[in-house]
């Protein structure tokens, strides 16, 4: 007659109380960090960038390509300074270090498409296809905003999509409309979404 043997599985020890406590604290910190991405982008900063973008598009219109490029590069530098300053102010207000998790993620996601845009612009300039540069900028900036916006509120990737659509339209539209598209993108979209972010996501 067979006998029944109870086979007891070696039980894993439950995690120690202090391990769970550390895990909980880390969870709180990570959730707060992820949630801070919601406020990391400054709406008022975007609005200011939009205003300078609008001004730049009118100043640069009908200039020679070299002057056009110099004016827009100067605006890019101004925009970068405004973005850095406004995000830093917002981070201080919410007592979050700017270069913490979310800030780094946004910076790393936004940089590759911008770098690709800079290299491609140089290639296009050397090959004399400068007409494609405005469309390329709008398209790649939009790509960067979408990838960077993945860590932010849903309105940010939507803004990126707007830039991509404008970029695609610029590439296929006559070159004479390029300045209007630049004004609509770097001016208009920044202003519209800047106001939305400022009103809905705390500044």
């Amino acid at each position, binding site marked *: 007659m067979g006998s029944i043997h109870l086979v007891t599985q070696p039980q894993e020890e439950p995690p*120690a*109380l*202090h391990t769970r*406590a*550390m895990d*909980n*604290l880390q*969870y*709180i910190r990570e*959730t*707060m*960090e*992820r*949630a*801070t991405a*919601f*406020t990391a982008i400054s709406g008022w900063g975007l609005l200011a960038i939009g205003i300078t973008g609008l001004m730049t598009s009118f100043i640069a219109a009908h200039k020679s390509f070299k002057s056009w490029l110099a004016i827009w590069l100067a605006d890019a530098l101004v925009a970068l300074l405004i973005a850095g300053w406004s995000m830093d102010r917002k981070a201080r207000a*919410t007592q*979050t270090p700017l270069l913490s998790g979310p800030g780094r993620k946004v910076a790393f996601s936004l940089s590759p498409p911008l770098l690709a845009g800079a290299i491609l612009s140089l290639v296009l300039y050397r090959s004399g296809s400068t007409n494609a540069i405005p469309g390329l900028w709008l398209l790649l900036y939009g790509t960067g905003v979408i990838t960077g916006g993945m860590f932010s*509120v*849903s309105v940010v990737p939507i803004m990126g999509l707007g830039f991509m659509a404008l970029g695609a339209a610029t590439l296929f539209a006559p070159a004479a409309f390029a300045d209007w598209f630049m004004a609509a993108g770097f001016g208009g979209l920044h202003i519209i979404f800047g106001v939305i972010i400022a009103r*809905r*996501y*705390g500044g």
Partner: protein
Amino acid sequence: MARNAALKHSTHKKREASGAASAAEPQSAKANHPAHSLDRLIHERMRLGIISALAANESLTFNDLKNLMHTTDGNLSVHARKLEDGGYIACTKSFEGRLPKTEYKLTANGKRALENYVSHMETLIKQVRSR
């Protein structure tokens, strides 16, 4: 059957409430141990996440929280309701155009509860390290 469900719900609520009560009023010497005076209302992962997310923002909409917590509408509303009933978060409903908008904010009680919870966790860790 509906009565049974209601009864189950109320028992569940009572258990929640008793959990919160035990956090506020430790009944025995054993309860003085930090692990026994945990605020059960926010000890649950999803609710702890909601409170933490709201602590980092002035307010968040239902959809923001849903995306942040990677959860479903039903799950989020159940947990948010518990926190609201406990007075830890405040909910305002409005319309944006024709679309309904639900916004959540952390109350002073909720902020205090999170601070207490964090200090409980820190005490637990310190106690082990000091051994």
